[in-house]
């Protein structure tokens, strides 16, 4: 795969995604409505990268595991427990900014 410009097509045809905890990967996958298992490696990752993965896990949007527990996670997972991920709302930002600059 090395470096494709965009994984969008692959993402759309996938049934399950297993990914590292990078924010872009997580969010893109969740926005496509695909079930996601996030594999974290505490030694390699920047602490702050884990923040989003942990929160998404807390909110029930992703499954989490480490490299060593991946196999058992795949064997015992129940994807129906995953909650859908509602899209962000940039309209709220636009409304806020309009008021700040006085367009409203």
């Amino acid at each position, binding site marked *: 795969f090395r470096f494709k410009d965009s994984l969008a097509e692959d993402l759309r045809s996938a049934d399950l995604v297993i990914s590292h905890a990078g924010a872009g990967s997580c969010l893109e996958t969740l926005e496509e409505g695909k079930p996601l298992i996030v594999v974290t490696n505490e030694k390699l990752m920047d*602490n*702050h990268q884990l923040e989003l993965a942990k929160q998404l896990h807390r909110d029930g949007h992703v499954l989490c595991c480490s490299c060593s527990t991946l196999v058992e996670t795949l064997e015992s997972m129940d994807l129906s427990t995953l909650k859908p991920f509602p899209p962000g709302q940039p309209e709220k930002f636009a409304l806020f900014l309009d008021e700040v600059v006085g367009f409203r």
Partner: protein
Amino acid sequence: TGGHTTEILRLLSCLSESYSPKHYILADSDNMSEVKIRSFEQKRSETFSGSQFTLHRIPRSREVRQSWTSSVVTTLYSILYSLPLIYKLKPDLILCNGPGTCLPVCISALLLGLLGIKRTIIVYVESICRVETLSLSGKILYYFSDYFIVQWRDLKEKYPKSVYLGRIV
């Protein structure tokens, strides 16, 4: 850079045409962002005509995990470029979301404000990746921005002067 650009373009997606002309300031080493921005503006021009935008480049102020002391030096170097640029542009509004590049830009705007040359509104939106802690830019600009927006409740509690609008990207 990368994720920051994607996020900021999403923020821009719902803004009206009154926010024009737009000036995008990028780090000189950033290649991907230019592509994303042009594609965004291209799409936008299909619905809104008269969308004016310009791209500007300044030296990158900090590499990932660069040491504190050398970051100060490289940031000062970037300010040598950002200050004349901001002086020329005299923006009414600066919107930024955390890459190192935003610091020299905001510092320049703050300086021009202190000198009475131009008062710019600085709006900072912390990345959606920041759930529990602020980025380095965030920690600094929390005190110097006019509006500091966070996307998770935890941060709103830790930083009470921030604005919480929920997830906006």
